[in-house]
């Protein structure tokens, strides 16, 4: 495995002559080409740092782009192609991780963050609501503060 990566790495470093999507790769059928682009944009160039194969100049990315297009031409669905690539290269190739047991936290975190913090805010608002509804009359200090706020407001208008 490691040796294969090193070999690939050597290929990339010493043979950097290919570039992002080349004209000869483009499919005749525009609908298929659009699909090819959108699939490629969600596939990671395995030897690059953080690029999709659609953006990458690496020869491997070109190979993968051609592979995706060949499979499209063979009539496979987007999901079949993704499945095939995952079987060959692992989940690492997907820039959009699949929803699975080990990605529940990943996909759920933003949602839960909003939910939990929303709950705390709601509870705080309830508590404060209860406080502000109590019939304690204003103290002199608070009355003075009120006057000042009102005075400020009329100034701002």
């Amino acid at each position, binding site marked *: 495995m490691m040796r294969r990566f090193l070999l690939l790495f050597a290929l990339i470093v010493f043979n950097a002559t290919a570039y*992002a999507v080349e004209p000869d790769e483009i499919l005749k059928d525009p609908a298929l080409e659009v699909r090819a682009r959108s699939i490629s944009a969600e596939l990671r160039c395995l030897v690059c740092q953080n690029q999709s194969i659609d953006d990458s100049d690496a020869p491997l990315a070109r190979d993968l782009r051609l592979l995706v297009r060949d499979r499209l031409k063979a009539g496979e669905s987007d999901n079949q192609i993704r499945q095939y690539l995952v079987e060959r290269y692992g989940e690492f190739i997907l820039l959009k991780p699949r929803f699975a047991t080990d990605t529940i936290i990943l996909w759920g975190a933003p949602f839960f963050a*909003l939910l939990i913090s929303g709950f705390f805010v709601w509870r705080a608002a309830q508590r404060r609501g209860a406080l502000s509804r109590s019939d304690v009359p204003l103290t002199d200090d608070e009355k003075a503060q009120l006057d000042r706020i009102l005075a400020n407001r009329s100034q701002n208008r």
Partner: protein
Amino acid sequence: MIIELGHYALILAIMTTFVQCVFPLWGAVRQDPWLQSMARISAFVTFALVLLSYGALTYAYLSSDFSVANVVLNSHSTKPLIYKISGVWSNHEGSMMLWVLILVFFAALVAFRGDGMPERLLASVLSVQGAIALAFLIFIVLTSNPFLRVGDPPSDGQGLNPILADPGLAIHPPLLYLGYVGFSVAFSFAIGALIHGRIDAIWARFVRPWTLIAWIFLTLGIAMGSYWAYYELGWGGWWFWDPVENASLMPWLMGTALLHSTIVMEKRDALKVWTILLSILTFSLSLLGTFLVRSGVITSVHSFASDPGRGLFILGILVVFIGGGLLMFALRASSLRQGGLFAPVSREGALVLNNLFLAASTVAVLVGTLYPLVLETFSGAKISVGAPYFNLTAVPLFIILLVLVPFGQSLAWKRGDLLGVMQKLLFAFGMSVLAVMIIFAFTIGGPIMAPVGIGLGLWMILGSATDIFTRIWPLRFDIGVIVARAWGLPRSAWGAALAHAGLGISVIGIAATAWGVEHISITKAGEKILVGPYTVALEASFKRSGQGYREEGARFLITRDNQSLGALETSKRVHAGREMPTTEAGIETFGLGQLYASLNEILPDGRVSVHLYWKPLVTLIWGGSLVMALGGALSLSDRRVRITAAERVSRTTGKSRGAPA
């Protein structure tokens, strides 16, 4: 000799930051004025020493002193002056020096502006600043010393990474660091308040300008970095959700939340505990960003200039300050008194909502950035989290937030009238919807997201305009009254409106990318290619050499309706001493849009393989960011901020204004 002097000053600065850290804190605890007074002096001396040290390093670069290892690795005697100066921070050691220089600069600035601050708070704040500086100075001296000499000086240096040899690099890191490090002041104020055990509207008034300054620079830094990646990396993208970009976005999001919560605290004395927590978290994310970039822990397009060996040290600093800060918070936060009450529907309530969404989107960015790393550490599974994830999590949160912004801006403090606000905003809403429909009608068949996004941007701009309008427009039209009121409106109100409108402008630019046209082709001289509304034709390919590089490129002529509109040049550049060529994109601005050419290769038969793009309204993305920063600057120039809180307290005869409510 000068190098040794700089080296010595750096080590001496460790001593002075130690003094700055320990004695004022001791004084703050024992309430000893003499010990507290050491804070300011040591902050000034530290700044002078680090400046001297940084100056010595810059001198080594300017004089091409190749007996210094750092200069050998990152400079070349033929480099233009600007890259000799910016070369200092193009590498790990130098950029850490810049980081610390900015840190101690801020500390000195706080000390300088500290007249009238409670002496005990000032001492605590400067002590925390000293502690951070101490940690990073030790880090530099032990693991990243830029002053090390080489035994056998070479005749010339190895040059700067060509990607980094760019005017963008000269300004991007300093701006970014001013932002990152600027948030350390808010952090120190938060810890200072926890030590001090008191926090009130005065505290917020002291902290707000620093937060604002950091936010302005971070906004500019991110925008600059985005534009730099856009033209330098040659892919035509402006945001890649790269871990290093995310590292700068996270403190920005949290910092934006902090900026808004300090307003609530300053005006209404509410959200105190939350503001303290945000101050700690914002700088924690800055530290995390520094860690991610400097340790090279995450593979990314930016990971030039990184070294995993140093990662552990920064991780240690991270743990001490984030952990320590949160621990202080856990221990002391309950002692802070809660402030003013407000109804859920109010300006305060809206700002809480703003904070909620900003915090949740920060979580999305944070989790997305770190998840692959954590998962691999614990289960060995390797996954990637890329742009599609962020587009599905953080972006929807942003959009909801943006929709809500104009409502928040128009709500009154304490108890708002939602129905009234809706009536006020009816015009802005109607115009935005109308614009969406008109644009949609003219672009039927095109992407639907573009008109909707533009509508959202307009909604924010018109919402801001409505806010200003309702505040200055009298019942009966009178130009004199309008001018007088517009003049009398606090600059912070103008600043807020401008910043929100700037955000709207950026949103419009982003939405319009959906209309972008991309053309990939192999073309021969004279062949006409239609790119958006423009016709581009290859004129000729060329080979030439410039200072320190040679390049092979192609020149295209641009026409529209048979009118010549200039030329585009794009090339592959090979720099002296480097194998990998860089792509020099050709960019020509027409109105608010840009034609963008990126060379693939020049074929042996003279044909040229090229990517051509038309990007309508693309400049608005960065233009909007500039407007946002301008809004921030306007807010910073507000009278309330310029006149320090203490002066104001003394002017308004003591207690009535300044005392905690």
